[in-house]
């Protein structure tokens, strides 16, 4: 009798443990809730790499904006490069695309851009202050900002498929 109770209790505990562990499948444990979603996008004043002109987010008030943080030392950013290029060509007249270079050198970035070309303005963030304001945790990361200047969401990984990018974009165009 005693043994029966012990076995039953043990098996219930085993079932509970397996249920708890199994329940965790399909959820990303690394996912940190993005606290800036729905909040006004922080303004910035940083220079463009091609003409040294200072650019602010407020210059684009009333237009949807896509901010892409990247670096030349980041392999996935390089794979993402042609995807961004293609999407910016398609949506460039309706959406503002801005690239922000993260923890990199001006000379490295300029030579990369000379070699690979770029379809939209690239800005330099020398002290990573903009990256800190936006809570960038790694590169590449892409932020989608609505017409009213609100951060709709961020995509914390490289885009490898233009269609996926377009789907995300449609949300801020609505």
């Amino acid at each position, binding site marked *: 009798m005693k*043994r029966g109770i*012990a*076995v039953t209790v*043990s*098996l219930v505990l*085993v079932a509970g*443990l*397996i*249920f*708890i*562990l*199994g*329940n*965790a*499948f399909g*959820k990303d*444990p*690394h996912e940190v*809730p993005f606290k800036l979603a729905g909040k006004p996008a922080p303004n910035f004043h940083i220079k463009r790499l091609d003409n040294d002109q200072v650019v602010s987010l407020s210059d684009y008030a009333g237009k949807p904006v896509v901010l892409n943080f990247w670096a030349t*030392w*980041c*392999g*996935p*950013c390089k794979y993402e490069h042609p995807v961004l290029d293609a999407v910016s060509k398609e949506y460039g007249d309706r959406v503002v695309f801005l690239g922000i270079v993260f*923890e990199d*050198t*001006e*000379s490295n970035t300029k030579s990369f851009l000379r070699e690979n070309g770029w379809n939209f303005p690239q800005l330099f963030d*020398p*002290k*990573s202050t903009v990256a800190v304001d936006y809570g960038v945790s*790694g*590169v*590449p990361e892409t932020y989608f900002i609505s017409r009213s200047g609100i951060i709709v969401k961020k995509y914390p990984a*490289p885009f490898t498929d233009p269609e996926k990018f377009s789907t995300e974009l449609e949300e801020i165009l609505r």
Partner: protein
Amino acid sequence: MSAGVNSTLGYGLVLLGLACAAFAAITGIVTGMARKESALPWVRGGVYGFAASMIGSNLTMVYALLTHDFSVKYVAQVGSKSTPTIFSIVSLWSALEGSILFWGAIMGAYLFAFAFTYRKEHGRYMQLSLGVMAAIATFFAFLIAGPANPWTQIPFPPLDGPGPNPLLQNHPLMIIHPPMLYLGYVGMTIPFGIAAGALLRGELGDAWMVPLRKWTLVPWIFLSIGIILGGWWAYAVLGWGGYWAWDPVENASFMPWLTATAFMHSTMVLEKKKALKLWTVALALSSFVLTIVGTFMTRSGVFNSVHSFTQSDIGPTFLVFIAVLLVFCVLLLAFRGHMLVAETQLGTIMSREGSILLNNLVFACITFVVLIGTLFPIISEGLFNKKLTVGEPYFNEMALPFMLVMLFLMGVGPMLPWGVADSKTLRDTAIIPGSAGLVTVIICAAFGYRGFLPLATFGVCAFVTVVTLRELFLPAKQRVDAVKEGWGTAIFVSASRARRRFGGYVVHLGIVIIAVGVAASSSYKVHSTGTLKPGEQLKVGDYSVRFDGLDRGQEPHREWIGAKVSLVGPGAEEAIATPRMNFYERSTDPVGSPSVTGRWLRDVYVSLLAYDTVSGSASFNMWVFPLVSWIWYLGIVFLALGTLIALFPEPKKVAS
């Protein structure tokens, strides 16, 4: 070699291994339960076949990695022509599929070594035990053949691959840390098989205890070294100035270590007093189950950990295995446990056996505290849909007091005799070590050291050291006095006559050293942070750190930016260091490489946080850590030395 040959050969060997393991498992368990010992050579043959196939498949993979055969999916995933040869070999375990394949080879080697060592002994238990071990091997061979198959062929191989995970390429310690842990984890299969075999048979004779104890000690030392090396690696690479963060995967390796350590102590009670049989066997079973749970934690992607870089879909298969394993253990203990009854009653708590029982309870408490803390985030999310993290404060507050008690018991236990202690003798024995502990606390306090936990740790460590040294050298002293031997001979003779005892005490000294290193480096570290322009300096403790400018370089597999710094110590001695940030092609973040200028008494640790190439300035995180290097340099030496002494074979007794 033409494309596809490696894949076909490697995968063919995996299938052969799977067949051999399944054959050995079925034959071993069925004939073992029927007590037909004549089938043993067949079981052994199956085990040998599994070992040879798995080792062969691994060697084929190493060949494919070295020859950059990108038609093999795994090579295309982790190989690269620019990766240095040593890291190409290391990439065997740098991603999920390869690491499970490597697991198979280690399991093969262990099973072969065990079956071969006892080929002429322990026939009555061997079939069942080998059968259980082969059943576990079957599961892993199935994983390699199916869900985690590294041998898939790519129809259009790429010209080059991305190379292994940058974190694994960033430090030479990564060459040995994972294999040590795997040797620890996989090795627990053997004591599990031994214990399960004994339970299935319903008896645990004295003779079968010897392999159980020895084959727990082997994975135990690998696990110990693996854990310490992991801490050392985190310290030397990650740049956050620590070596232990109670991360789920660190905890996953710590829990089986705790139960295996408890096991090692309870076996003494079993041998001397013929008690705690079932408890000891349960500890052997749980150590293995915890290694499997630990592997699940690393491999399933379910836990938030720095280590779970291998997101995978083997999780569900593993979970089914854990379920089967747990149910098997519960039923085994429930329906066979009564056959392993104690032959004597344990006496008072003030005895050697009493202190070991207490030691086992404390180990069990620490394991429970760590297990609950580790599982709590997913329990909370599963039951209450609430995302929570359990951080260091919980573990420190809950586990550290138990650890202090454990340390204290390491001194108390050896002072107590088996049976009943005479209180006067006990008082006499305790007076010198107790005074040493008190004096240590007073001296540390007089030198300005504060804090209950570190001072208590130093005091208890002094107490344990005196007890341990006395236990180590008293038999030698008696020989010096009685037989008039020299000290060297006396120590050698007394140690070789009681190898387990001597080795055990050397291990205790290793634990004391680690405890002192941990207490000193975590309680008395000095931290400083700041941004410097070239020529400027910053104080950290007694050291001045001058920034001499940025430097950069390129290696085949990475680019780096470094900060040249000069450290000037209290005695005006100077050292140069270059903390760096390494940039790997496939990494989304730079990988830091802090500089550690080590000295026996302290480490000066400088980590480059950020730099600005326009102004040439750099931001640093700096620490001075007292005694931290004792943990790895001395800790590993003492633990390994003690274990080797304990494992050293006794001379065979010749019947007269």
